[in-house]
């Protein structure tokens, strides 16, 4: 149980040592699978016909990563984030990124308390379990990097004092790929910090019709009852890290990362961080399927969400028509699946 969420004002480094309650029952894979499918079902009741997107979001949640949602406005990016937060009964904060947004708006600020004559830390929007960064590419690079530090470190440093963030902590940033004017596109280094990038895509016509039917009256989020809490998710996330990844499978991930670096179609291949996150996400995927070990299919399923936003096509235009997805699919096809230790 993290104490950071309970104390106000926070003291630096508070609760850093109390990572989890040692008396709690260790979660089994079945628990993970059950909780995950509960969350999945809950979110699905709000977002129609987007099972794969929800699946990836749950995977990222359980793997302790962050999610980059890239799509046109109005397809439910924010709704997905809200539904996810509500289904795990955790606080959600939303930051609308604009060019004039300051880093302190994100992280928080120390203000002078006239009564106690001390500086007090006022927490920013980042102090929540689920943080939705809307149109993250509209903020200035300075503000963006403030957010990114939090994402990577799980902590905030203001005036030399470090504050731990809530756990579980997940940033779901959205980007609009259409209106690029006046935006600051995320540099590669920052994109690399998102575990996965997904596009919502338009719903199918049946799903859209259903949505109009169901959501016409009551706001759907109001009907969503939480199926878990932050502590449970945290427990599950810890269990996920224990899912077995055999040497052959780890080799497979390294081979794939290596292949993206060697590929002539890609100017920038996957980073070691990408390999790491691929493995973590693969563990979560395996756990979601009720398996205590990762199989190659888990990895293959995640190649595009996890790697597509990290690699850059070579300027040599002959690969452009295939797109990143095509190039990655080709790499997956080519890399042999190791059958055992080499």
């Amino acid at each position, binding site marked *: 149980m993290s104490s950071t969420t309970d104390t106000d004002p926070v003291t630096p480094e508070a609760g850093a040592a109390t990572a989890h309650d040692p008396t709690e029952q260790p979660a089994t894979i079945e628990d993970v699978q059950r909780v995950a499918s509960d969350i999945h079902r809950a979110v699905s009741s709000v977002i129609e016909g987007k099972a794969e997107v929800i699946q990836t979001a749950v995977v990222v949640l359980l793997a302790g990563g962050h999610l980059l949602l890239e799509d046109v406005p109005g397809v439910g990016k924010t709704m997905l984030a809200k539904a996810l937060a509500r289904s795990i009964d955790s606080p959600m904060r939303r930051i609308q990124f604009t060019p004039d947004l300051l880093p302190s708006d994100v992280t928080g600020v120390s203000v002078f308390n006239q009564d106690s004559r001390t500086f007090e830390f006022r927490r920013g929007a980042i102090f929540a379990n689920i943080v939705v960064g809307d149109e993250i590419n509209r903020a200035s690079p300075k503000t963006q990097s403030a957010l990114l530090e939090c994402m990577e470190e799980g902590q905030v440093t203001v005036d030399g004092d470090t504050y731990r963030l809530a756990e579980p902590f997940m940033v779901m940033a959205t980007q609009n790929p259409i209106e690029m004017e006046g935006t600051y596109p995320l540099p590669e280094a920052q994109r690399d910090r998102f575990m996965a990038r997904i596009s919502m895509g338009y719903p199918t016509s049946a799903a859209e019709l259903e949505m109009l039917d169901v959501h016409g009256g009551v706001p759907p989020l109001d009907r969503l009852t939480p199926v878990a809490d932050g502590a449970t998710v945290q427990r599950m996330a810890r269990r996920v890290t224990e899912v077995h990844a*055999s040497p052959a499978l780890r080799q497979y991930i390294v081979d794939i990362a290596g292949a993206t670096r060697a590929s002539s179609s890609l100017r920038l291949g996957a980073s070691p961080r990408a390999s790491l996150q691929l493995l973590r996400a693969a563990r979560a995927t395996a756990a979601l399927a009720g398996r205590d070990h990762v199989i*190659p299919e888990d990895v293959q399923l995640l190649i595009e969400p996890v790697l597509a936003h990290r690699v850059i096509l070579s300027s040599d235009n002959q690969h452009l028509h295939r797109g990143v997805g095509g190039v990655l699919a080709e790499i997956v096809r080519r890399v042999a699946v190791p*059958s055992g230790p080499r």
Partner: protein
Amino acid sequence: MIARARLSETGLAVLGAVVALWPLTTLLEGGGWLWGLILMCAFVALVGAAMRTVRAPASAILLVQVVALLVVVALLNLHDHLDTTFASAIHDLVQEANDTVRKSAVPAPVTPGLLMMLELIVPGLMIGIDFLSVTSRQPALAGVPMMVIYMLSTSNTGSALNPFFFIALAVVWLTMLAHGSGVLVRTWSSVRARALTPTLHEDQLGLTGLSSAARTLGLVTIVLALVVPVLLPHPDPHYFAKGLGRGGSGGGEGVVAFSTTVNLAKDLRKTDGSPVLTFRTTDLSPPPLRVTAGGRYSDGEWKDFPSSTGLVISSDGKPLPLPEGEAKSDSAYVETIKVTDNTMSAPNVPAPFPIASGDFGQTRWGYSPTTQQPYVTQKVTSYELDYRIPQKDAYKTGPLQDQQKFAGQLRLDPASASRVRDLAGRIGGSDAFDRAVRIQSYLRSDDFTYSLKLAPTQTRDGKKLDPLSNFLVTKQGYCTQFATAMIMLARADGIPARMALGFLPGAPAANDTYTVLQSSAHAWPELYLRGLGWTRFEPTPGTRTGAAPTYTNESTAGNGGGRVPNAESSTSSSSSAAPAAPSTQPTKAVTPSGQGQRRTDWLGDLLVVLAVLAVGLLGALVLPLLARRQRQSISARLREHRPVEAQWQVLQTRLGDLGIPPPEEEGSPRATERYYRSRAALPPTGLEALHSAVRTLEQERYAAPGTASASIEQQSRKILDGVRHQQSWPQRIGSTILPASGRAVFRRGVDRVIGWPARLLGMRRR
């Protein structure tokens, strides 16, 4: 323009044809025809080059070449017959060619008909070589017509060809291949060639490996072609095929014609092993079956054998009169042979001599009053003959009456007369019969060698010896030489003698059945003796003919060891040191060795067949065994730590053997499962087993270690059964005998063996 003609390739093609043609020189007499053929080959090649220069389509080139060849052949051979006699002239020439091929021994004379056929066949094949190697740029295929020309020679020689002919042909063919590849490479532009140049990894497996493997393969092929025939036993050609244009005595399907030209100067080619007839008799040593007797000897050739004219018509069962000169003898007894499956064409009919009576069924027949030889009006398949066995006691000493009547049978050949008289004088003998027996013993002695191949012609006093003298000097020959020598020696002693042609009876099979083969054709002398009449002698050594006739053996019992002084001491010291064997013994143990020879022949054939079968059987076992060994090695490698993996890989190789190759790219277990689902058409139980096997495999590969060891043995069996169930019997047998995994192992082994020079070269290059 010139480039389009492809002159260098054309030149190579002509060279190829000429080299393939070359061994024909061992078959045909003279050499002028060779130059004619070379010129004609060059001519059709030049026609092709000219047509290519004007960019004619391939079919037009071919057509023009064929027409040009036909026109030239017609002008050369039929220029006198460019009118209504054209067709009959062609017919005559073809007939002549046919006769030449059928009747002549090697080397054959080049008759106009044969020349015309050669002028059609060889340049015709030259057109094929030109079309394939130059016009179509596929020099590899041009090996086929080249081989056909080469086969014309190889299939018709009785003896082995000099390997040099083959090496020359192989070198020309490989040059054509190399030149063709060089042309191909030069057509690449250098930029594109660079773009196509493979990277190092592909270099090992790709072009370099392939071309050097091909080089090695070519080399190995040539070496094997030279070595294997030396190491292997040399089976008679008729085991495998009848060669092109073979058949010294073959005349059409199912009928045996009998060639009555006997040339002493020529090697006897290997003749056909097909049967002439089958007969049964109770006679323990049946005489040869005679077809004709008589003939006139001149210039080393027996000619003018009597024809079937002036016959005495006879009827079945009626006894024939005693032959001329034969005294009635109570002790002479009669044997019977029953001939079946006779294939000899009318009017000739093989018969023992002398016949007492005959039964040819419905067919009209008669016999020659001089030779007592029966003739028929049409071919008879089966007939029955009684023949007399001559008895020695019928012989009467004393001088022969009416020498005039036998003038023809006493005439010596002028070329060899003095040598023959000299030798006959040295052999000597008390009376006619004794002299004849001594001659026979002399010729059957160890000094003489039976051989189908004649010794080279010797020269005496600057003159080449005539064939008979050459035989008497070199003491090497076959039945014709032996018979002729005996005839001439007898005539020199004043005994009338004539040539008889026919067949040896061969070896008896079950229940006294004898099968006479075409290759049993034989020649022997008949001597006219007082009281006995025309009597068969057998001077040809026992290795070929078995024992000499019994009546020629007894008389010499008291005639102790008539040594024959040898005048030709210069020929060989051994022959003078070891004179003829004592005439008491015909030759050493002829009968058993003759029989034994035949039995070992037969045994040898059986052994060859058994060996071929055994090799085939071993060959059929090789691949399954290799596949099994591979499975065992997989198991051994993985069994301990990853048992399921081992079973899975074995399952994959077995599925490969059943015709479902493993997926090309190594995918995850589930991807592999999908692959096998789409390929194998498994029944539901098989699908279940496959699913379960894949899950077990996945467990072993990816789950945390320490889980209980599992096995997919049962699932494997179900899957394999399911796949086998879908297959037809031929597929199942094929996958058992030729399993894909075994083939792969074999291929890898071959690559390793033949690839070592390539690897060596590759290493040096790097």
